[in-house]
């Protein structure tokens, strides 16, 4: 007989001890980039790469987080970097994963912009995956002027710019 509404429930079967417990957790955060990273992001909205130079060791960081991680001093000198750089190392992505927005296979590479002492990750296109190599010279391809925003989405991808490969000695410190 079914339980009366609101009445005591009847255990009709032994389902064993509780062995797992799902406790969904979600937190939302604001992101504040700070002074230095804001300069980098606003540079992207202007179609250029902005970095900062350390006054002690003269290294140029892009993006800069406002300090020299080696010397611990504020980086206050802004530096506009070139639109071209060198692939220091790369990965050909063949594995599909949730949320993937690019058709596989594609190339993900660390790009060291000319004049910078820090590489960052970029998407490489317009080159077959079996021709990608360390030392390849690349240039940034930006979105159309009216689509520029303070985001790395302003850079569509990097592509080979046709220059001869960089000498390993010039980028071996940045692997």
């Amino acid at each position, binding site marked *: 007989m079914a339980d009366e509404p609101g009445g005591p429930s009847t255990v009709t079967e032994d389902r064993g001890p509780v062995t797992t417990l799902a*406790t969904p957790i979600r*937190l939302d*955060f*604001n992101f504040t980039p*700070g002074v230095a990273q804001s300069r980098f992001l606003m540079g992207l909205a202007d179609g250029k790469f902005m970095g900062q130079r350390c006054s002690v060791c003269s290294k140029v960081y892009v993006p800069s987080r*406002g300090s020299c*991680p080696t010397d*611990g001093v504020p980086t206050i000198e802004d530096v506009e970097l070139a639109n071209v750089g060198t692939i220091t190392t790369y990965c050909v992505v063949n594995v599909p994963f949730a949320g993937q927005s690019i058709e596989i296979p594609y190339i993900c590479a660390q790009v060291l912009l000319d004049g910078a002492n820090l590489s960052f990750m970029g998407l490489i296109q317009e080159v077959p995956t079996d021709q990608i190599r360390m030392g390849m010279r690349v240039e940034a391809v930006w979105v159309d002027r009216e689509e520029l925003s303070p985001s790395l989405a302003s850079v569509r991808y990097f592509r080979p710019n046709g220059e001869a490969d960089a000498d390993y000695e010039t980028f071996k410190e940045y692997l």
Partner: protein
Amino acid sequence: MSSPENPPSGSAPRRRPVRPVSIASFAQARNVRQDDHHNEVEMLMPVIAEAFGSISITKDDVDFICSGSTDYLIGGPFSFVMALDAVGVWPPRAESHVEMDAAWALYEAWVLLQEGAADAALVYGFGRSSLGDLNEILALQLDPYYLAPLWPDPVSLAALQARALIDAGRATEADFAAIAARSRKDALSNPNAQVAKDVVASTLMEEAYVVSPLRRHALPPITDGAAAIVLAAGEKAHQWSDDPVWITGFDHRIETHSLGARDLTVSPSTSTAAARAGLFEAPVDVAEIHAPYAHQELIVKEALALGDSVVINPSGGALAANPIMSAGLIRVGEAAARIASGEAHRAVAHATSGPCLQQNLVCVMEGA
């Protein structure tokens, strides 16, 4: 209220330092409700520069670095690693981190200095509570099976504790308001305080409840902030100060995470830590108590057996500014500053972590 000659029951054996260690310098950011102009590194850099600069040293003069912070505030992993950019750890040196208030980072550094593994240490804490919802974030420090899934906010848990204190006949809501009024008034002389005002308790009592029996004044402000302390042992302590402020006892203890298994009106872990730190051996002039909620000052004051002549929270305490992950470290710095200025000879600093005073740290300091 017990006196220093009559310490609370459950006291533990004294644990004496084997090596004198001093609070060589202290600096803190101006505490604000929201700093949305700087990232954590940019917030920390001037604080660390001041901690070094005030005693004319550089990062090369410390051989250990320890920080206290939590990724739950920033919403990103390994934020303490990125924060090291504010120090510049080259050449490499020993570094550690605690996912706790930086008062516990100070303890770790002190232990390392006790062992002779280092002679000087930089300790810092940082956190911006403005980036997320602090009520939700702090709910996640609770036991993950029975409490966290209910998302109890910290104000409600503190209100349960305050209610228990009132029901036990040990405090009234007017007592909470009196503490908040004193804190606000004292904070007027603290340039880094966030909440400072000359206001009488009866005015504060007109505020509405946030969660009964706690009115707004009995709650800590939400604060973005950072702080740093330099510890020095041996010769460095004398090199960097003519009159070093010495740590004469340091300990921390924890109670069960199960709130229902605790008597929330007392703080036995504070008493144990105080006994082991030697607090009860002599009276203190000043106590900096980390009591984010007004009623918690009463509980800690009793656990520390502080007499009525002791000046409590001359900085305004956590009711004047409560930067998560550095508010406890700031208590140590503020107490040390009273000794350095000559206002006090012997002082105690207390830091707390977890819900309803779950974990407590006691640091006893003396002047030369």
